[in-house]
């Protein structure tokens, strides 16, 4: 009992610390916003043609001068974002940096996503410990409980990538918020919220459409747990003698029925219904806002079409821009298909192998997207890196973690240097920057592959432990 009290006190302390760190991150962002000559908004790593605030302002200007925001090839974002953020780009407060109000919006979006990530993390951790308890597995590191949600959300707010994306005024914090909202809704079982987030995320940047698989799995199967067959064997025992050693009886009662549930179709169908409802509603809104211009078809062509055909060849941290700048025109379509198939192709094996861990599947898919999407930015990386924090218990045994850490730091320091050498000084050439992007892609690949293999190993360990217990 004393240990428990101590633990609770510790938790409370940690909670207080969490809020302090959260406040500090907001203050830090506000301070960064006041640095006028950081010029982060024009960094290729931060703002892509899809997320750049300058392009958004241009689109808003075009719309204000009664032209379609998609005339010309400046703006490729959503018309709703335009009506939401557009007015903020114009308002200027005397003596303050431009786009100040916009940056406040992004800070709010960042904080919101961090809190939602924390919510996901709390749910996830509860589910994790519960399943461990059911399996009667006591992992050695269990004693010192990491509040995974806090870690993930602090990783999110304090990740330099997130800070740079937020201060650099790219719209990726909002895209990230939509994605986090989807996963939060799905993990909480709030179907309309999940559907709303999903529709918004898809509308804003198309690629999150593949998150439909983890979301359906989340809604159908519940939160991440070891494979069901682990439980099937031990289920009868659990019901016979409920353990009463560590946690309170009440919690046990609430949690018990959740565990070994089969795939429930009902929330999924609800989800699909809500998704169709929200999409119709969204299309209606877009149609209304683009009524006097080119209409929806123009919107699709210059947002989704622009994303899928990689028309803009300006450098970014991905690898596709250089390939499409160099590849022979004749093969362009072929490579476009190959790259997009590559994203889609991995979905099936991953969801077969990780169907019991839908949130982890979402993390893997997000990191693959951040690597292979046509205009990646550091904002995308920030999201999956913070999601990694959610699996801090499972991924303790991640291999090469120090190597990867150093790699990420090295890349983020080298990238501006290479860009400077190529673009500003002219002493380097495009290959310098491309090599950097290449290395970044490699690090991301290693991270994804290693975390998947660690997660699978973790499952194996659980199975071994539970098998030892029950045999």
């Amino acid at each position: 009992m004393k240990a428990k009290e101590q633990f609770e006190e510790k938790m409370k302390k940690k909670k207080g610390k969490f809020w302090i760190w959260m406040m500090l991150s907001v203050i830090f962002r506000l301070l960064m916003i006041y640095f006028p000559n950081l010029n982060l908004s024009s960094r290729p790593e931060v703002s892509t043609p899809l997320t750049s605030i300058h392009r958004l302002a241009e689109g808003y200007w075009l719309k204000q001068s009664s032209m379609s925001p998609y005339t010309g090839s400046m703006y490729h974002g959503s018309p709703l974002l335009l009506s939401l953020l557009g007015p903020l780009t114009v308002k200027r407060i005397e003596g303050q940096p431009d786009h100040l109000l916009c940056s406040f919006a992004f800070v709010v979006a960042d904080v919101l996503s961090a809190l939602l990530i924390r919510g996901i993390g709390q749910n996830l951790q509860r589910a994790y410990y519960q399943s461990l308890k059911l399996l009667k597995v006591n992992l050695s590191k269990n004693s010192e409980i990491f509040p995974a949600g806090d870690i993930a959300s602090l990783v999110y707010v304090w990740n330099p990538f997130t800070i740079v994306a937020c201060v650099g005024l790219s719209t990726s914090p909002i895209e990230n918020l939509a994605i986090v909202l989807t996963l939060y809704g799905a993990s909480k079982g709030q179907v309309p919220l999940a559907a709303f987030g999903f529709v918004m995320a898809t509308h804003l940047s198309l690629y999150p459409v593949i998150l439909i698989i983890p979301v359906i799995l989340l809604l159908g199967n519940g939160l991440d747990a070891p494979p069901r067959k682990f439980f099937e064997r031990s289920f009868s025992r659990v019901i016979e003698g409920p353990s009463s050693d560590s946690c309170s009886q009440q919690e046990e009662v609430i949690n018990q029925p959740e565990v070994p549930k089969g795939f429930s179709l009902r929330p999924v169908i609800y989800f699909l219904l809500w998704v169709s409802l929200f999409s119709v509603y969204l299309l209606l809104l877009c149609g209304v806002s683009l009524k006097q211009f080119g209409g929806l078809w123009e919107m699709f062509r210059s947002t989704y079409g622009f994303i899928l055909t990689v028309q803009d060849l300006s450098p970014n941290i991905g690898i596709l821009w250089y390939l499409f700048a160099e590849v022979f025109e004749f093969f362009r379509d072929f490579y476009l298909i190959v790259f997009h198939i590559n994203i889609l192709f991995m979905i099936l094996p991953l969801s077969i192998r990780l169907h019991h861990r839908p949130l982890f599947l979402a993390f893997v898919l997000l990191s693959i997207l951040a690597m292979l999407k046509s205009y990646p930015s550091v904002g995308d990386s920030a999201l999956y890196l913070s999601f990694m924090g959610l699996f801090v218990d499972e991924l303790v045994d991640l291999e090469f973690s120090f190597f990867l850490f150093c790699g990420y730091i090295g890349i983020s320091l080298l990238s501006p240097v290479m860009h400077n050498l190529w673009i500003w000084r002219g002493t380097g050439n495009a290959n310098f920057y491309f090599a950097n992007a290449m290395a970044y892609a490699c690090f991301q690949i290693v991270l994804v592959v290693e975390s998947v293999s660690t997660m699978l190993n973790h499952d194996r360990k659980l199975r071994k432990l539970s098998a030892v217990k029950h045999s």
Partner: protein
Amino acid sequence: MKMDSVLNAMASFLRLISLLCLPILFAVSAIGSVSEGVAEDFSEDLLLKPLPDRKVLAHFHFQSTAPSSRSNSYGRHHHLFPKAISQLVHKYRIKEMELSFTQGRWRYDRWGGFDPISSSNAKPSGVELWAVFDVPPNEVDATWKNLTHSLSGLFCASINFLESSTSYSAPKWGFHPASENMRYGTLPREAVCTENLTPWLKLLPCRDKSGLSVLMDRPSIYKGFYHSQRLHLLSSEYDSNAVDLAIVLDQTLTVVLQPHSHRGTLGYSTATQLQPSWSLSSIFGRRVTGKCALARSSNVYIQLDRGLMAELQGMLGEQEMFAIIGASSEGSGSNPAFELSANPDRVHMEISSRDDKHLSVLYMFMVEEKYDDSEPLDLRFTWKIPVAWSIPQAPLHVTRFLLGSGNERGAIALQLKSTKPSDRLMPDTVISDSCSLLVRVFQVVPWYIKVYYHTLQVFIDDRPHTIANVVEKMQVSPSKDKVSPGVMEMLLKFPCGLKSAALTIEFDKGFLHIDEYPPDAHQGLDIPSAVISFPDFFASTQFMENNISKSPILSKWQGQSPILSYTEVLLVPFTTPDFSMPYNVITITCTVLALYFGSLLNVLRRRVGEEERFMKSKGTNNFHVSHLVSKSLARLRGRQWEPSESQSSSSISNSKSKLLFKVILVAGLAAAWQYYFGSGT
């Protein structure tokens, strides 16, 4: 007798016939005389003008006119008018067209910006082409494309590059007041040479064999500081209420040359130094031996501009000024300021609506039959006193430049500096109470310069100014990647007391595909000249006209031509990808992708520990006794976890047949592909 009577009858019959035919013959001759009235016409003029910076402007002007094909009794047959041009007009239904080849940059501050020559003959370097068509709006683009190809063949130039929609634009009102169905395109980097001049000369009836065009000695023309060869076409062929002249073709060649000064050395030019004297033979190396036999008129003019006259008036007395003005009446080309080698046939004085003494003078020399090979016309202009003057300029002097460094982004700045024109140049609207200066800006930006139009900033006298107060009207059509250039048309309204104004607009530099870079990519890419015009000002020069010889150049000057100035062409340095690397990039990128794909799949299907042993045992026993193996497997697995037994065992036994099936499927697909798609190619 019989014979006689027969002859008589014949004669009377012939007489009868001749009598019968007479009216017809008369009618024919009458028609002939009518068509003679609007017959094709050709005239040639040469204008020479001393410039303040010790140079001489030579401006050749050839005008050919053709009557409408409807009123012309010969149909589409031409005597003088170039057939190629009339075919062009008929085929593409051109209302108006202008093509210019230019080398060098017109110095508005030194060579003038407020006279008909500078506003219509100062052109941006390279090729500029614009045309107005009389076709339905949806056919204009196709017609333009065909026109560019025709002109390309006609003038031996790469005008066909204007065919691509990225290189031409459709100005609404910024370039030309009436510009419906208008297309405008420039090629700033086009090199102009004699190969463009020769086809241009071919359009003249005398080519360069006789007449004023004899002076066009290639080395001396291309040696000049500025060279602009222009072709302007005005057609009223498709106008319902057309006057009798259907097509008017103006060909002009404007060159700025440096006369050889034998006495004074080059290098400095002061008020105390004598301006270089020049003659036709010293600047062109040739002399005029006679007029082109087919030309109606052939005149040489020497113009002294307003600034020079004002300066002379300040230096000389009343009497001497009269000598300058009345050179012809006195019968001597000599006066205290300069000396002309020949007596001018006529002196034209400019007339002004306002009472003003500083007016330009035009000496006219008719090229008559009195000149021949033995006694050619070699007009000489010799200065007697040193003069320094400034030439009339447009109200604002325009320069354009780039801001920023690096190859990522930048800004275009357009700077307008007041030239402080004296009141006499200001039109009445400006002097009256609503004191404002209207400026029209027309700017085409290629698509790879991604302009942020919302960043437009206006500075007046170096202080930022709200845009709404200055920009009266603005029309923007943003550039579309690889489809169309960005066009910006603005009407600005500045206060009168303006000293300087600047417009800045930011842009991002685009990154192109390696095939889209020009051959010399490291040199950079061009932004074509912006066109600045002043809608309140017109360059018109009215002369006291006796209406005896209305030469085309004078009638041209009397019409109101808008004041235009072109800015510099901007050269924007661009970053380039590594042009030598496509294979490397493709292979390296694909390697990384394969790394991702392979390692992730490998992780997903990897088995460890017991799983591996289990798989191994499965593999070894598989061949011998599959039944036994499956049985033992079931037992082995049963100890570990609940297997889906039937599925796995069946998969093992079926693996061979599955493989066979797959092979057959792939082969079948390949065959079908070959059948359906391979046969087509």
